[in-house]
């Protein structure tokens, strides 16, 4: 049985989705391109849960290239599990055919809330080390088949536009960033984990003063850190919890607050208030989010979409490094 954990809360605020096709002829699915996990799964026609009824479902019988397995899959969602089976088929990603790709087909999905998820499934882009049951991740399969010319992929998230955001497999397009890419070694190959030197505001350390670890995760919307550190930051910037579970903040603070600076591998990556305060028609909320981390794991941060909006990011599997440069 393949076991994986995909807590829904990380996907609560996700707004960026891509389309893939599975099978021959291809059946379309909207997925999160998630550098914080490594498995691919989509709903299937075997699933009669309410959540599946509102999403595209893969039908193996309508694919001439599908190969089934007897392996089961279970993905925990905290209060319940998505269960299903593993199979192999051709995946259409950006016009390329990734053949013999292993993926999960859900048979049950928990909770009525998933009915409203704006995505059908997840496409994981982290290392195979964290892939359940040793299932080969999509990018590894693409590389193994020679479908990409460089063993890396990159992500650009357009903050304001409905379109323009892109995942690029096998290359880097310099038109998306300014200056040079700064390279940061991956500290632990599993997630895209790197070492952060410090987090400062007005030149003073507000967190991570002795250095800390961070995971660069396109599958987490906000910028997460230890609860205590984040509570301090929310206090500094004047954010308070609202009834929607978000940290509300006055939109006028965007004009007054200082940058929050992440120093990584000796290079400063400032986040202006316009980046860490999220504006919408309903008002403004903080882009920071606290999380309870096991004590033994030390201080861990998640550099989610709030960070990636500001910094074009390259995920370099060949050299086990992350490239960062300010977006153009």
């Amino acid at each position, binding site marked *: 049985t393949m076991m*994986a*954990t*995909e*807590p*829904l*809360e*990380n*996907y*609560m*605020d*996700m*707004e*960026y*989705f*891509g*389309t*893939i096709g599975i099978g021959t002829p291809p059946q379309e699915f909207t997925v999160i*391109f998630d550098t914080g*996990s490594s498995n691919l799964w989509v709903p299937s026609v075997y699933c009669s849960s309410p959540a599946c009824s509102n999403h595209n479902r893969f039908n193996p019988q309508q694919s001439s290239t599908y190969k089934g397995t007897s392996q089961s899959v279970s993905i*925990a969602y*905290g*209060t319940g599990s998505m269960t299903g089976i593993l199979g192999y088929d051709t995946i259409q*990603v*950006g*016009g*390329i055919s990734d053949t013999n790709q292993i993926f999960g087909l859900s048979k049950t999905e928990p909770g*009525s*809330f998933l009915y*409203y*998820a*704006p995505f059908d499934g997840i496409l994981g882009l982290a290392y195979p080390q964290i892939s359940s049951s040793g299932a080969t991740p999509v990018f590894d399969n693409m590389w193994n088949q020679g479908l*990409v*010319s460089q063993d890396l992929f990159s992500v650009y998230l357009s903050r304001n536009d*409905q*379109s323009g*955001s*892109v*995942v*690029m*497999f*096998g*290359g*880097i397009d310099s038109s998306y960033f300014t200056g040079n890419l700064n390279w940061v070694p991956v500290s632990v190959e599993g997630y895209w984990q790197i070492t952060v030197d410090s987090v400062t505001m007005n030149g003073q350390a507000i967190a991570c003063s002795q250095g800390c670890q961070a*995971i660069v995760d396109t599958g*987490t*919307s*906000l910028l*997460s850190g230890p609860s205590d550190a984040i509570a301090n930051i929310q206090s500094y910037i004047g954010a308070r919890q609202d*009834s*929607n*579970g*978000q940290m509300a903040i006055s939109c006028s603070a965007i004009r007054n607050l200082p940058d929050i600076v992440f120093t990584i591998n000796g290079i400063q990556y400032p986040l202006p208030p316009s980046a860490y305060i999220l504006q919408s028609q309903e008002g403004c909320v903080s882009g920071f*989010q606290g*999380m*309870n*981390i*096991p004590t033994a*794991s030390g201080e*861990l941060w*998640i550099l989610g979409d709030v960070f990636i909006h500001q910094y074009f990011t390259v995920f370099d599997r060949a050299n086990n490094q992350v490239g960062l440069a300010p977006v153009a």
Partner: protein
Amino acid sequence: AIIRVPLVKKKSLRKNLMEHGLLDDFLKKHSPNPASKYFPQEA
């Protein structure tokens, strides 16, 4: 030879739940901890 996959912006699950009056119920039944994605054993 770069394979490009466009990403589109859609309304988040939180906003969908909010619009359907289900967010309060969701938050009552769940205590979101983003760390559980990375520490499944502890979660």
